[in-house]
């Protein structure tokens, strides 16, 4: 049997740059002063884009009831998209008292019989972990009985943050799927995309370019993923980490176990997309491929520049304040700069130290790195005469009071901002925001107000 993942090991990630300075890392929610998702949510996010797998949540109603159909993880899977189907054992008081293992086994059987998935992921949750249901044994039994992979995911919410949960999701795929099947053929340019979830189709903004270059995406974890493909992931030549934060442990272990090197990059904005494509080509170590990639990048950039021309005029001289978290504090800044917008400030409160350094590089000496954006952003808008605030919904009123344009970059976005094509989407959305008179209009005083 596969041993349960060791939480401590995942928290003490040697591949993390900040590891030397922050030993207790990423896992200390404060009672009464915290927001953000739990480990279960992170695990779901990581594995959820496998539309050909059933995702069975073994727990009470909260865990699935408030989480299914929440993420626009698009899929090209032609069968029924099982990410749009919510499965839960929905355990009751009786299960809490007597245990939920039989119910879980029956539920897996029900799903396999009626929905014929390529695999079943079984998620432990706080309550079923606490009552001690042995989901490993149930999954093993069900797998033998039904002949499809049944993969236990040990990420009950109380073990920690969303980020830790993503790592645990990766661990589940590594333990239960990766290396369990061989690809029909191998190419010298086989890669895995790791930590790309294809939210709003982000991956499709660049996957066609990889294809054109002759780089084959052997498997993904897990954007537009297929179970049959992730089982063959150990034969790839390169792991491409799109979101380093969530799955860096997994790629390190794949390097140790299968000798697959990795590169970490972002497909946000023009410069990052180009640099990313080149980094993949260089890591694959083929001079002709690198030359081909340079030509493609030049062509795509020229095409993009042509399409951005009408926007350049709108964005000329415009200044933006950016209040978001994590790697977005610099990656969106970079995309905005690609559009010719000056980023005068970005929030780094929720960013890692590496992200802060990158934010400083992107914004230069003059740019403000906000440690307390809630209080600072309003002042900075006044001081710099910024025209645009990009933030989460809570900052809306700041924009209304100042009468400046606002774009929500934290809510579940509806459009893809990834790759070259996504930058055009971002340009269009920002143009609409800047030209929209609503913020000035809403800021009008009522006739009865002094």
């Amino acid at each position, binding site marked *: 049997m596969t041993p349960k993942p060791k939480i401590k090991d995942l928290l003490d990630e040697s591949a993390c740059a900040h590891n030397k300075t922050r030993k207790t890392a990423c896992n200390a929610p*404060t*009672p009464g002063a915290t927001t953000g*998702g*739990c*480990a279960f949510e992170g695990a779901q996010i990581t594995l959820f884009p496998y539309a050909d797998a059933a995702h069975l949540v073994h727990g009470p109603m909260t865990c699935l009831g408030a989480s299914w159909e929440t993420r626009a993880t698009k899929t090209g899977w032609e069968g029924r998209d099982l990410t749009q189907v919510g499965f839960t054992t929905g355990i009751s008081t009786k299960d809490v008292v007597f245990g939920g293992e039989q119910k879980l086994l*029956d539920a897996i059987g029900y799903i396999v019989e009626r929905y014929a998935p390529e695999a079943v992921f079984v998620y432990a949750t*706080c309550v079923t972990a606490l009552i001690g249901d042995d989901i490993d044994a149930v999954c093993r039994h069900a797998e033998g009985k039904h002949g499809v992979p049944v993969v236990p995911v040990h990420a009950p919410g109380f073990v920690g943050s969303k980020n830790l949960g993503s790592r645990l999701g990766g661990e589940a795929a590594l333990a239960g799927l990766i290396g369990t099947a061989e690809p029909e053929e191998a190419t010298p340019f086989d890669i895995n995309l790791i930590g790309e979830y294809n939210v709003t189709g982000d991956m499709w903004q660049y996957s066609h370019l990889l294809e054109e270059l002759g780089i084959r995406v052997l498997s993904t974890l897990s954007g537009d993923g297929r179970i049959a493909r992730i089982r063959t992931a150990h034969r790839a030549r390169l792991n491409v980490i799109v979101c380093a934060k969530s799955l860096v442990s997994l790629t390190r272990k794949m390097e140790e176990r299968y000798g697959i090197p990795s590169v970490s990059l972002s497909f946000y904005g023009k410069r990052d997309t180009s640099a990313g494509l080149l980094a993949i080509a260089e890591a694959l170590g083929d001079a002709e491929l690198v030359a081909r990639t340079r030509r493609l990048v030049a062509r795509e950039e020229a095409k993009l520049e042509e399409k951005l021309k009408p926007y350049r005029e709108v964005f000329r001289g415009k200044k933006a304040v950016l209040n978001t978290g994590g790697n977005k504090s610099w990656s969106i800044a970079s995309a905005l700069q690609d559009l010719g917008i000056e980023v005068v400030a970005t929030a780094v409160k929720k960013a890692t130290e590496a992200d802060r350094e990158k934010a400083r590089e992107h914004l230069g000496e003059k740019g403000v790195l906000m440690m307390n954006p809630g209080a600072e952003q309003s002042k900075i808008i006044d001081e710099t005469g910024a025209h645009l605030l990009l933030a989460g919904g809570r900052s809306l009123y700041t924009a209304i009071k100042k009468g400046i344009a606002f774009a929500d970059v934290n809510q579940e976005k509806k459009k893809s901002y990834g790759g070259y094509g996504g930058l055009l989407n971002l340009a269009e959305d920002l143009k609409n925001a800047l030209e929209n008179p609503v913020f000035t209009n809403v800021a009008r005083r009522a006739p009865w107000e002094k």
Partner: protein
Amino acid sequence: MGEVSRKSKKPLQVNPFKLSQPMGAALAFLGVDRCMPLMHGAIGCTSYTKVYYTRHFAEPIAIQTTAVSDVTAILDGGDYSIVESVKNITGKVTPSLIGLHTTGLTETKGDDIRAVAGKIDFPLVHVNTPDYEGGLESGWALATRAMIEQLVTPTESIDDDKLALLPHASLTPVEVEKIKEFIASFGYEVLALPDLSTSLDGHLGEKQAALSGGGISVEQIRGLADAGLVVTVGDSMQGCARALLEKNPFVRHLHFRHLGGLEATDALAARLMKETGVERPQPPIARWRKRLQDAMLDGHFSLGQTRVLVVGEPDQLAGFCQALNEAGARVAVAVSTVDSPQLETIPAAKVLVGDLEDAENLRDEYGLIVGNDHAEALARRFGKALVLRGFPNWEQVGNQLKNDVLYEGGAYFLFEAANAATALREHKEGH
């Protein structure tokens, strides 16, 4: 009344639309001015709830978590997590009340929140809401009942002009407001508990506060026991009325199973007339009654040919099914999140406690769906008409202002349902 089936034979739920008790309790606490709901569990329960309501109401939602971790899950009886939470919350903001409620995790480990609450020197209401029992509606009712039991001051005096309204969980902010106004037009001062009509009604606030604004005040809750009348809407709220009666034996109680459609609104008007001696309600009420009658006639051509699936919380189902039935639509299937005595009263051919997979299996029996966002995929896959109602609705804006109750809302609701059914029929026949 049709056949009612209360027990699922399945070992799981597929495409559930049921929500949890902790989510219902949190929503109830958001109907109290400057209250901070504090969910006692792992961070995810609160995070999901926050995101869920933020998207549904398109408003920032104030809520906190005791952030139970792997260590505190085993070693702490709630004392550390809860006391630390209250310290951290009150260190930043000054809520009028903390609404402490449990989750499956903390119920399973057996925390005695009542004992912990006793050690906290801050206005706090505690309530047990395990998420492996009940659902949104019962969580809301449990929290409301706890507020009455723990906050309301007992008295024996009565203010005949004062009326306490206890609305069920599925009534939208504007529906609560309309019911308050309807009753107030008979001369009452109406206090709703909880009151989403002024807290989650989507008004543009003065600033981005870390606490919800609007809703009934804690002072008003404390003084609720001298209300001459308590009005409950929805069977789930009966226990709350009993709790209020315990505070003052002279309070009288009027119960309405729902306020959907002509008959139910007539019953409310009739009772209020009897109570107050008012012989004719205010002109707008009489005018809206005529408009509803006209809407029923205008809509009956389309609705009379339509068979409907309604999914929702029990009290919500009862209102929709009655309103549709009165205008000639036949409710073929009503699917409820949880069991309730209310299910016996629902005018539908089939009533079941279940999920959207059950509804999908019965898809040949209806053409129009009244239900939440999750029903959208079902409608799209099988070409059904859809009227979006209930939690969640993330695709549309304006949920807080959707009004389906009383004469006025009933008219709007029937028009929308009839138009949706017609549009689909024309679309199908045209192609």
